[in-house]
């Protein structure tokens, strides 16, 4: 059953829940694309062992400071540590996987 412990096929989460923060600036094309791409990748590789938090800097500009966000969209992997940072609309799946340190299932 999804959501329970134990490895499932396509699950590379390593057993812990991933926390991902996606910083966007309003509902731009890039933002929407990034979110869609991120969802897909997470579904494919993390199978539910994840939590996506979307932060709109237009609504909350002060949050840009904390994670030092300059480019948008930026994806930050908070957990598992170490923190990883990826910028762009995540259309290049290869690079996203490398950036998030997600191995492809052989």
């Amino acid at each position, binding site marked *: 059953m999804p959501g329970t412990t134990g490895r499932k096929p396509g699950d590379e989460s390593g057993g812990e829940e991933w926390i991902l923060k996606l910083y966007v600036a309003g509902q*731009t094309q*890039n933002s929407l694309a990034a979110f869609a791409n991120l969802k897909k990748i997470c579904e494919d590789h993390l199978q539910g062992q994840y939590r996506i938090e979307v932060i709109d*800097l237009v609504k909350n500009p002060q949050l*840009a400071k904390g994670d030092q966000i*300059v*480019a948008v*969209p930026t994806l930050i992997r908070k957990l598992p540590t170490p923190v990883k940072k990826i*910028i762009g609309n995540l259309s290049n799946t290869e690079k996203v996987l490398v*950036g998030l340190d997600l191995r492809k299932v052989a």
Partner: protein
Amino acid sequence: MEFIARGILDHREPGVFIAFEEKIEDLRKNFLSLGFDLDGMVKKKQLVLDHIFIERSEIEETGEYDLEGLFIRLGSAIDAVGAKRIAIDTLEALFSGFSNQSILRAELRRLFRWLKDRGITAVVTGERGDTRITRYGLEEYVADCVITLDHRVANQIATRRLRIVKYRGSPHGTDEYPFLISGEGISVLPITSLSLDHQAPVERISSGIPRLDTMLGGKGYFRGSSILISGAAGTGKTSLAAASVDAACRRGERCLVMLFEESKSQFIRNMGSIGMDLERWVEKGLLRFSATRPTAYSLEMHLAMILKMLRDFRPDVMVIDPISNLYPVGDDIQVRSVLMRLIDHAKTEGITGFFTSLTHDPGSSAYGLEPTAMHVSSLMDTWLILKNVEGNGERNRAFSIIKSRGMAHSNQLREFVLSDTGIDLVDIYPGSGGVLFGSARIAQEIREKAAKGAREEEIGRQKRDLERKRKIMEAEIEAIRERFAREEEEAGIQIGQGVGREELLDEDRQEMSRSRRADE
């Protein structure tokens, strides 16, 4: 930072300073040493200091992106204080963090347009490139003004210079201007005021030496003029300048003396030995000194420091002793340029400037005109010259005025005598063997005095002679008169007697005739 801080301090315009490379704590400390209290400004909500950290290691770029995050951060900082000025140091940090050059360039263009639209003046720093002005070609996006800074070492002396490369919409100076970073921020040497439209001064001030005032058209120097005092070593140039300082302080005016050879206490002591008490003016705050080794700084730095002192102290008289010591620090052209700017500033402010210069006695000729090595004499209104005169086994000093614009001045050579009562300009003697100085002069004076005395005696003697003769003559006349008087008397008596006898005879005759008649 100077731009932002001055905006806050002088123009009440809040500002934002974005640092990509320095931490805020470092900024605070560094700028405190320049006299800027960033902390205070932040607290008063006049300044936002923000540090944006760009990771140097390549961040995975996974598709299209823009730098809206940056815009948002800048925007919130600007809005927080209502900033009209922003400084970004250094924008090139973005280039090392993001590898997609085309996105970067597009965003930079957008950034500057965005700032411009909001009416914000932005100062951006970038590193110098090898072939272009900046390493990453930032200058293409910076619309309006580009300034390059340079730190050069020449003759073992380091100078910072800046140059305005372009400035749209306004004419600008295209030369390099040296600038100075000191305890009060940045100061650039003012060059713009090199027009020659000063008002010609008419007021005269005393030189401190009455005889010299007489030689200078009877009244002394023009206030605000430039006076060059050149001479060989030990001729007393400094004393001449100091005399004017003393005179000025007596009038209650402020004087600034810049020494490149002696220390302040040496100067005061030396002038004390010729009867000038300068210490009291120092105590009264009318006299200020600055003594530095000329090789300690570059020429521009010297100029900047002097101008700063002039602005702070606002003296009426300034002395630079000697300007010839600036020579090893720069070449002919540079020294002349520095002096020109200095004199220009002094004239504009009405400061009378005294400049001493060491020159060398040419061979044995005592009266040949000496060219000043720096050709600065043309910058000066008045040129006084002191020479050593050797002769008769001793050295004396000759003084003369080579030129003094705007007044009738004496062309006579005088002997320059220093004593413990001060400076004296004494007449020299043009004798048959040439002019005489020193003890030869004194000897001549004695001789002339003696000769004069002898002549006077001669005249006296002649007068006495005449007097004697007159007395003799008068005595003789007296004697003749007396003799005559006696003769007169005698003759008078005799005449009287004669007359008496005649009368008697007459009477007898009459008697006789009467008696004769009686018989008939």
